[in-house]
């Protein structure tokens, strides 16, 4: 169906039901209620605020208000050297921190015309996927807890811990590795890490299997998610939705496969998962499959890890030649990209950070029209945003 049609029909349905209620409401003198959700609210995991005008339990209009965590990274990057910037941008999507560094480093490498050695690229890709697992496994538990099931989130935390341990073993940081460098990575893998990681990947697959049964197979979960928050593909694209959110609408587009960044994804055999439904259930399903797929990617990468140096020759003090470069990768939350303008200094002249959650959330005013209050939670949870990724 055409996007405009879907949009229009939804609106017409809603207008009709409003009109039907209007006379009754006039007679008994009711008025709408404005409900303020957040900035401190369990469903917003962070400080998002949602002002919803309600008619009973139905949302007439909902407007997200953010900025409670705005840290001004685009301004701050203008007074920091390139290596210092990675420390900062680690904090954008704090659940999959390493993935934030990669597109920035890639863009800087483009400007400097440096290419990281293959081993560094492969390790980057491995860590990228590990941070994806660390990020999305939490989503898998969190969405269940938003829907009222208490137990899955603890299982998610339990198994995520193993992934974080592996990340920590390499980078020294559980949450904020700051490990990527222009021209390569900081250190090589520690001894025995490859086998440990493979064991952890097996664990994560068990975790995925368990969740497929425990959460996806649950009738109540399906009843709460199926048909809730349907995003038509064209609508999603024009709002800039990316990542699993748009793949759940049937758009077969993954920057790991389709992007032109020099990571090692084209060296391994993997699959992009899509789902035709576009509802909350599809988004959960796609993310679960992607987590499992990521474990296969990591295993293959570890099997084929090339030997060699992990650092290209880079000057001690990094001065980036003048120019503009753009780099985008498929981060756990969606497309993340950096547009760097350099004027030949130690610091970037301007950095535009395109974070996935900001665009993903921009569809919510449209999506939340006419849903019920419990569905707000379902939709927000299934769109999966990290506050740091919205507010930057």
């Amino acid at each position, binding site marked *: 169906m055409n996007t405009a049609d879907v949009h229009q029909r939804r609106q017409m349905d809603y207008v009709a039901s409003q009109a039907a209620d209007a006379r009754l409401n006039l007679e008994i003198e009711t008025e709408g209620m404005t409900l303020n959700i957040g900035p401190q609210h369990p469903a917003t995991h962070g400080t998002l605020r949602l002002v919803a005008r309600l008619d009973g339990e139905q949302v007439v209009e909902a407007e997200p208000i953010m900025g409670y965590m705005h840290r001004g990274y685009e301004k701050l990057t203008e007074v920091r050297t390139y290596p210092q910037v990675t420390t900062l941008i680690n904090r954008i999507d704090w659940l999959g921190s390493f993935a934030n560094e990669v597109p920035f480093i890639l863009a800087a490498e483009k400007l400097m015309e440096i290419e990281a050695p293959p081993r560094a690229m492969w390790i980057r890709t491995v860590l990228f996927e590990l941070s994806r697992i660390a990020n999305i496994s939490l989503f898998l538990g969190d969405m269940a807890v938003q*829907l009222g099931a208490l137990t899955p989130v603890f299982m998610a935390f339990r198994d995520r811990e193993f992934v974080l341990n592996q990340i920590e073993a390499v980078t020294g940081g559980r949450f904020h590795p700051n490990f990527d460098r222009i021209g390569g990575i900081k250190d090589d893998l520690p001894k025995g890490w490859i086998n440990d990681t493979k064991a952890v990947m097996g664990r994560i697959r068990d975790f995925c299997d368990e969740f497929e049964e425990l959460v996806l197979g649950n009738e109540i979960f399906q*009843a709460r998610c199926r048909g809730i928050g349907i995003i038509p593909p064209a609508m999603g694209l024009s709002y800039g939705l990316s990542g699993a959110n748009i793949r759940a609408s049937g758009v077969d587009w993954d920057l790991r496969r389709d992007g032109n960044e020099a990571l090692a994804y084209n060296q391994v055999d993997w699959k992009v998962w899509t789902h035709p439904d576009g509802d909350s259930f599809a988004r959960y399903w796609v993310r679960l499959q992607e987590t499992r797929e990521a474990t296969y990617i990591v295993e293959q990468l570890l099997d084929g890890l090339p030997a060699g140096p992990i650092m290209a020759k880079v000057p001690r003090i990094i001065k980036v030649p003048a120019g503009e470069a753009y780099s985008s990768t498929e981060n756990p939350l969606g497309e993340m990209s950096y547009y760097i303008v350099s004027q030949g200094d130690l610091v970037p002249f301007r950095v535009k950070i395109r974070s996935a959650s900001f665009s993903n959330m921009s569809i919510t005013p449209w999506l939340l029209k006419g849903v019920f209050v419990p*569905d707000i939670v379902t939709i927000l949870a299934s769109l999966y945003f990290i506050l740091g990724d919205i507010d930057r």
Partner: protein
Amino acid sequence: MTPAFLQSLTGAVLALEVPYWVSSAIKLGLVALVIPTAALMLGYVFLLKMMSFMQSRLGPMEAGPYGSLQLLADGVKFLQKEDIFPEKADRTVFALAPLVVLISTFLIYVVIPAGPDAVVAQLDVGIFYALAVSSLSVVGILMAGWASANKYALMGGLRAAGQLIAYELPLVLAVMGVVIQAGTLDLQKIVTAQAHGEIFGWGGIGNPFILTQFVGFFIFLVAVQAELTQPPFDMPVAESEIVGGYQVEYTGFRFLFFFMGEFGTAFAFAALAAVMFLGGWALPWGDLTHWGFNIAGPVILLIKTLAVATLIFWFRFTYPRLREDQLQRLAWKFLIPLSLVNIVVTGIFKVAL
């Protein structure tokens, strides 16, 4: 203590002639003591320990042996907290609401029999009375939701009202099967009927009604789950949507009252289910008038109650939450027709056999 001594003690207690007001006071004190004990027990065994083990963690371990005194510590903590009234709250109603909920719980305990003589009040309409007073808690919840002057609380209160009223019906209809089979509303006689009953002529284990009324038992459990506002029916307190619903503005000991009310009611309903479906305090092989059942009965009833409570809490920790409309649909389109069919079938068997 020898059995002979126990027997004489029991006899002496039963033979004691005390004024009416003294016996009333003793009974009241007893029930008032049982509720916090029951709430603490369920809270510790299920909320703290069983849930923790299901979620691959240990739960509290420090307060008392194996963390068993944690809830006492929590209770003391609640008592220390400031008693906050929201500025625009209706103070009287706000203060009364937790008491109303607690009193509703209190009144159920009055009729639950724990032995041939160990019952506070043996009513002819016992089960009818129990279900009637249990729905009083709706009033308290509505009061709390309205008086808090909070939109979340109001939504929670309204959701609770809709839900509890919808699930009164399957609750009562599920019990109807038991009542038809036992031929009485008196809980004490329901226990006796199960101990003396026969299943198609065989009386080896009596006739716990769970065997013949398994449909009723299932409906009763589901409806109880909704009455207790526990997952998968916890929309009135859904913490990820309306942040605790009607409880959101309560602090300190008033919140403790809600907590006790919740777990006390859970225990009461589990005990009711044990009495109606599992044979209550009786064992099928004994002489029910024997004095020893006054001592052993409470223990037997407790074990059966915990078995039912395990089921109730297992659901609670496993399932996600339904939506309000789905909940109503389940009640009106599935549970009520099913329980009506159950009544008809029970009636046919009752007449035919």
